[in-house]
């Protein structure tokens, strides 16, 4: 998703340099990426190297830490999946329907981007806790949404929604309606039109949205912390473990866990990118 992977194959295919000033743009990309991404990340890795291998292993495989990986990655995955389904619905409605107040709804989608995440966490908690607007009706039915892993998932759904909507929306807007009409004329059912015509063209965008929502959720701290309950082994997210280690002035341990998270996230994003590339080749969609 960076400029790098795109630049490399372009170069292989066109040794005669079709693009003018290619060296400059490539150089700029690498410089910029290094400044913004690689240098801070390498500082992280260097700090981790102050640990011996045994210390590193002990820091990143403690029982509480392992439980937190399961929660963070599991909840992020579920939240991203939910967002794919409902984000698509929202994008669909925003693109295909006209209704009163549509502009406002459209703007509302971006709210989770702009809202300080702590505010989101506090308001969600106020809503879902046992005495909250929603929670007071759910609690008697035995449904507890705040202060357990459910709360984590809900907070992550909230912050991840715009990523899916905003990646799918433009693709839907560009999708040619004529194709759907043609499909209908050729006798396709509505489901066939969706699954064979529309879905393949928006699938890459959906995957991108999924990846972004997922990645964002893994790193989320502010909103989750207020709703999670933070019980060891049950509802502690990995970023909380990192903060906990910092509170003990265990800088190296904190960076060690951060590095593990980073590696995991990177691998997952690589897999998603590969999926996307495969899917693009498979369907021949131009996106």
């Amino acid at each position, binding site marked *: 998703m960076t400029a790098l992977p795109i630049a490399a194959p372009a170069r292989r295919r066109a040794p005669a340099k079709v693009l003018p000033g290619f060296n400059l743009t490539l150089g700029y990309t690498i410089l910029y990426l290094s400044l913004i991404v690689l240098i801070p990340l390498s500082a992280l890795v260097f700090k981790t190297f102050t640990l011996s291998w045994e210390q590193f292993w002990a820091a990143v495989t403690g029982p509480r830490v392992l439980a937190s990986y399961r929660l963070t990655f599991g909840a992020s995955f579920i939240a991203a999946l939910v967002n794919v389904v409902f984000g698509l619905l929202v994008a669909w409605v925003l693109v295909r329907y006209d209704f009163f107040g549509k502009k406002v709804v459209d703007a509302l989608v971006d709210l989770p981007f702009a809202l300080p995440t702590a505010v989101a966490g506090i308001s969600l908690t106020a809503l879902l*806790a046992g005495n909250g607007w929603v929670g007071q009706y759910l609690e008697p039915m035995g449904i507890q949404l705040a202060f357990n892993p459910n709360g984590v998932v809900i907070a992550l759904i909230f912050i991840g929604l715009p990523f899916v909507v905003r990646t799918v929306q433009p693709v839907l807007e560009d999708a040619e309606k004529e194709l759907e009409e043609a499909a209908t004329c050729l006798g396709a059912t509505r489901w066939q039109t969706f699954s064979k015509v529309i879905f393949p063209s928006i699938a890459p965008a959906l995957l991108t949205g999924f990846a972004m929502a997922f990645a964002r959720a893994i790193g989320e701290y502010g909103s989750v912390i207020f709703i999670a*309950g933070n019980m060891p082994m049950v509802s502690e997210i990995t970023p909380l473990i990192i903060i906990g280690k910092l509170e003990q002035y265990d800088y190296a341990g904190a960076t060690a866990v951060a590095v593990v998270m980073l590696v995991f996230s990177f691998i997952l994003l690589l897999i998603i990118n590969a999926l996307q590339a495969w899917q693009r080749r498979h369907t021949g969609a131009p996106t």
Partner: protein
Amino acid sequence: MKKITRAALAATLAISGSWVSAQTLLNASYDVAREFYKDYNAAFVAHYKKTTGKDVKIDQAHGGSSAQARAVNDGLDADVVTMNTTTDVDFLASTGVVAKDWPKRFPGNASPTTSTMLFLTRNGNPKNIKDWDDLIKPGIQVIVVNPKTGGNGRMAYLAAWGYVKKKGGTDAQAAEFVGKLYKNVPVLAKGGRDATTIFLQRNIGDVLVTFESEVVSVDREFGEGKVDAVHPSISIVAENPVAIVERTVAKKGTGELAKAYLDYLYSEEAQEIAAKHALRPRSQAVLKKYSKTFKPIQLFYVNEVFGSLAEAQKVHFNDGGQFDKLYTVK
């Protein structure tokens, strides 16, 4: 913002023709001390003007106590640190930012005020919670701070442990007691304020274990009469240590001012301001005067039971320590 105010101040001074440039001092402090230091700073500025004729401006930076310590360590140019856990200042001493013998630089272990852990219950104390033993009864929900993420939580844990030890219990009995107590904890708060919010706004739990000084802010923010303060029979002394940041004062030449600032915390006037904010003063006279707030209970120091706070940190709170075992060993 700070720069702008400073520039504005400089401009006003230049215009008024006064060339006495006001010295500024930055105090890095913990979150809930904001109100206390606001009052104290005003008193100190007046006092300093009267005794030395010099103007001085105090800036405040607040945050979680250990987050502040990390910020100062990483380069925040604070002249003094005023914390609520000695480990935070110990950390700065270990990195050479404050003097190694900082507890000896000011009276009372360099802690002009202390606090202790007590209980807040719902109005009228419906579950009749009187002492630590009531917290481990089945069906009682206790709200405390996660000792991993907040000094408030560490003090609550140590107070409960120390209670058993002070009554003649063994370490094993203390571990069992604390284990039962945390079984009654439905939600571990991230920090002191978070705990108060969970207890009062979310309405979760029967009792909140927190600093004595938190009672005043609860009354102020949520209205009086919502909670009862319950003093257990035995509790812990939580010192609020202060220290001069040698690195900064050497650079800015504010050593004298910093010392005057911290010295004045021990004056009767400052001790009285502290008492009004429910921080236990060191001055016996002021303590007596406010005995309604500071009920005399049996207090013990961390050193008596745990050797030192650093030792307690290692045994109880570091990864794999006693606190982790409560949750990981079944």
